[in-house]
């Protein structure tokens, strides 16, 4: 059976060009980039190249890039750096729709004496910007906001918000793991101090990420150890994956236009066809401020895990915000923060596309999904 992978906000396929770039560095050029000999020095040179490529993707300068092990490490590093550089400030601002990497860290910090403001969103998932601005105080150590939401694809106006936050002299961090490679991300046009990105969301392997740290930002390492990464992250570099992230960043820049055009059109086709073929369906989020590859669709009166397992029989891979799939008993905190009614939250499915998806695949989903929804609704006591 052919796999139809439309779960690219979860992870992506490693691009064959990325893999090719990485392979020699497993067992041919395996030197330690910190070594004095030229065998290691050549590897260090490759890391420099990767740093330039990652920086160029977000219009940063190479020395503003710190390689990490994942998006979560980047987020943790940024937030810890901000609060430890201003130990007298005890207030953190974030949103109610963050990825667990930020949400759970902030909840953890709230138990350690920090006051955390979780800024609400509206029914479409858009941030209540005024609420945010009114929450800024002299005691605020950091504002950390997700650039584009992993579940709904909703994009926050990070450039505008960062300018207001910076005017008050408060550190601003953004989790841009889902935004990078899908919409233009230019740190020069915004005032963000720190920005997290992740390799495996942009066709690099899992286990590598990066943190942009703007020049002049007070910083302290999260992993304390050797002098790697200019003393900003201890630990021998994950050389192979960093080289992969470099290549993937170069490709992501080249592919951005395709994502916003062709992939966006496929997503729009999927959405409009499902909306026209299936009754009682709603899209979570609006159409103007959303990632071109993402759609969160709620099918009322049925449950998401059932839908996922039925489409799995056809090789279709997607995600759900339902309770049964979240590992807890409650539906996704993102959908709940948006006020999506229970009738719809439990039956939400996220399709997230990539440049590898074809029109035939989208047509296949459009063909297979409606009878599945009808079947499950016929089993449901709430239908009709």
């Amino acid at each position, binding site marked *: 059976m052919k796999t139809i992978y439309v779960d690219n906000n979860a992870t992506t396929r490693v691009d064959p060009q990325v893999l090719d770039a990485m392979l020699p560095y497993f067992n041919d050029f395996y030197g330690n980039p910190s070594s004095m000999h030229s065998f290691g020095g050549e590897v260090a040179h490759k890391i420099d190249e990767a740093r330039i490529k990652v920086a160029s993707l977000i219009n940063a300068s190479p020395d503003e890039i710190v390689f990490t092990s994942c998006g979560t490490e980047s987020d943790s590093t940024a937030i810890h750096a901000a609060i430890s550089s201003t130990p007298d400030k005890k207030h953190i601002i974030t949103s109610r729709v963050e990825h667990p990497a930020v949400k759970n860290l902030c909840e953890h910090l709230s138990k350690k004496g920090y006051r955390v403001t979780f800024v609400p969103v509206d029914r479409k998932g858009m941030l209540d910007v005024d609420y945010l601005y009114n929450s800024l105080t002299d005691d605020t150590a950091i504002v950390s906001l997700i650039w584009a939401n992993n579940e709904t694809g909703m994009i926050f106006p990070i450039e505008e918000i960062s300018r207001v936050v910076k005017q008050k002299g408060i550190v601003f961090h953004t989790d841009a793991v889902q935004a990078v490679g899908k919409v233009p991300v230019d740190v020069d046009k915004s005032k963000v101090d720190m920005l997290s990105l992740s390799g495996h969301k942009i066709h690099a392997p899992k286990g590598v990420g990066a943190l942009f740290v703007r020049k002049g930002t007070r910083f302290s390492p999260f992993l304390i150890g050797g002098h790697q990464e200019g003393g900003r992250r201890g630990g021998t570099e994950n050389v192979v994956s960093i080289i992969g992230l470099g290549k993937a960043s170069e490709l992501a820049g080249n592919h951005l236009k395709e994502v916003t055009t062709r992939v966006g059109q496929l997503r729009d086709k999927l959405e409009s066809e499902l909306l026209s073929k299936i009754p009682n369906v709603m899209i979570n989020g609006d159409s103007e401020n959303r990632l071109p590859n993402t759609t969160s669709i709620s099918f009322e009166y049925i449950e998401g895990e059932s839908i996922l397992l039925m489409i799995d029989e056809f090789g279709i891979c997607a995600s759900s915000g339902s309770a049964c799939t979240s590992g807890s008993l409650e539906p996704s905190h993102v959908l709940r923060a948006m006020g999506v009614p*229970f009738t719809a939250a439990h039956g939400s499915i996220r399709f997230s596309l990539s440049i590898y998806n074809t029109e035939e695949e989208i047509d296949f989903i459009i063909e297979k999904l409606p009878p599945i929804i009808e079947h499950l609704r016929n*089993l449901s006591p709430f239908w009709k």
Partner: protein
Amino acid sequence: MWEYTEKVKDHFLNPRNAGVIENADGVGEVGSLACGDALKLTLKVDDDKKISDAKFQTFGCASAIASSSALTEMIKGITIDEAGKITNNDIAEYLGGLPKEKMHCSVLGRDALEKAIANYRGEPEKKVDGEIVCECFGVTDLEIQRAVKENSLKTIEDVTGYVKAGGGCENCHDKIQEIIDSVNGTPVTKETRHSKLTNIQKIRLIEETLEREIKPELKKDGGDIELIDFADNTVFVKLCGTCSTCSASQLTLKHYVETKIKELVSPELVVEEVAQ
């Protein structure tokens, strides 16, 4: 991904006896949309009290649908009395087991069956017995006790897997632990309660409880609470932030705040919400 047995997958993908029996002799409905699963079971019973037909409608995940389908297969052809003896474990075993986190799906089946049998026998609808412990999923202390006893549950996680209690805001975890301890015979240490307090002392304690216990919990969800007044053992509060606009959570909230204040200040206190 959940580890489902082949039998679970089979009953999910090819559900047996889906639908509704018109003019059923017994109907059992449990669960709700908010909870994430619900089951409507309809029975046809012949003159020798044998279940001649059973059909189900289920809203829920794969294991909920599979448990319902399995249940109908198990009860068709047996007598009402025999069906009454079926436990949630029997349903899970029929399916070759369910993941621990999904055992509540088998409990859903058992509950629907009990209701359908009671309905057939013409017994009045049972009132919810006991006191609500888990506000998020509306689970009572007696339901938790029963699950702990029948399935020899040891941890809060187990209880959540079987009856969902404790799977939401987690505020009831202490109470669940107390129930587990009391069923399993572990001594329970009761907190000392304050009964003979002056009004001033009560107000101070209420303020302390709000600040230390209640506010941090509400703030997690963007809400807040303010003490407005205190008179005749009634605590008047105002809910702010997102709590004030969420009508669904208001009942829960009032109950939660009241429970905390009764527990930590004095049992005779009641909480009233002041209009916005």
